[in-house]
């Protein structure tokens, strides 16, 4: 990966950010990066596998590196071009290496290119792009997700119900202890 550009804007994209995932209390950590990103758009998907010809097996690694290099460069310059427009949309590009803590020793390397756009009406679109090399072929996959705004009423109602449940269980426990104390 020596041919990455070294300018100030792109230097943060030349090396992936290491992001551990699926950490120990697995009830409290995401299992995979596509969790909780919103609604999956099933028609906006790229997913295919390209087998390389027989005499070019040694090209897998350079092509794999160039896939990330070219995609990041393209997308980054596309984002840079949009910065001068009047429209108040934010676009974020990240290059992340996910490390599954549970399967760290046996898993393949999972490098993701994450592009996130927040529209004027605060809808979030996330695209996850990744390339994988298996023995003699390259897999290319892109998935996109859309997430709506925060639903305050749902948040408030759920927490009120939770409060009532806690209060109810505590009062039931109190009632039973009183009964026991009185000798019933």
């Amino acid at each position, binding site marked *: 990966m020596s041919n990455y550009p070294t300018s100030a804007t792109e230097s943060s994209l030349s090396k992936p950010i290491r992001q551990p995932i699926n950490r120990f209390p697995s009830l409290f950590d995401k299992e995979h990066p596509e969790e909780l990103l919103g609604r999956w758009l099933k028609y*906006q998907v790229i997913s295919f596998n390209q087998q390389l010809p027989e005499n070019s097996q040694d090209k897998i690694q350079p092509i794999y590196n160039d896939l990330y290099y070219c995609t990041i460069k393209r997308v980054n310059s596309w984002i840079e071009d949009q910065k001068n427009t009047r429209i108040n949309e934010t676009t974020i590009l990240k290059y992340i290496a996910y490390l599954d803590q549970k399967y760290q020793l046996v898993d393949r390397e999972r490098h993701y290119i994450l592009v996130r756009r927040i529209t004027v009406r605060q809808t979030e679109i996330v695209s996850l792009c990744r390339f994988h090399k298996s023995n003699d072929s390259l897999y290319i996959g892109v998935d996109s997700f859309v997430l709506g705004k925060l*639903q305050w009423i749902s948040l408030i109602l759920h927490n009120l119900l939770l409060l009532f449940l806690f209060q109810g269980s505590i009062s039931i426990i109190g009632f039973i202890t009183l009964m026991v104390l009185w000798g019933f």
Partner: protein
Amino acid sequence: MSLIIFLYIPLIYAYWIWGDVVKGMRQGDNFLRALRQRFPKRISDNSFDIDDTLIFLKQLLPLITSATKQAFEKNDLQIKELEDYLDEISKNIQQQSFSINTGGGSIIGAIFGGRDNKISS
């Protein structure tokens, strides 16, 4: 003993509500973003917003396919099937749209129903 039984239900409910928020925050999202991932509004059928979404996706995905093509060309590897296939994909993406299911649920259904996840789409 009774204490454990009666505290179970609210604790499970608390996990169902706040577990995903904790998951999001441990992956580096701020609190509001994590809350929003757990309690998203249904995606609005505001056509301005749908246009903004589609403008983004229809520009981004062909960029990725052309970058893929470029990466193969850079290593002097030209596979005709691959190029045809990538052209076809980017052409298909230009035409595809997505449907938003806004009907069907009442207000209660929208609040207590399923989150917008892979399965429900």
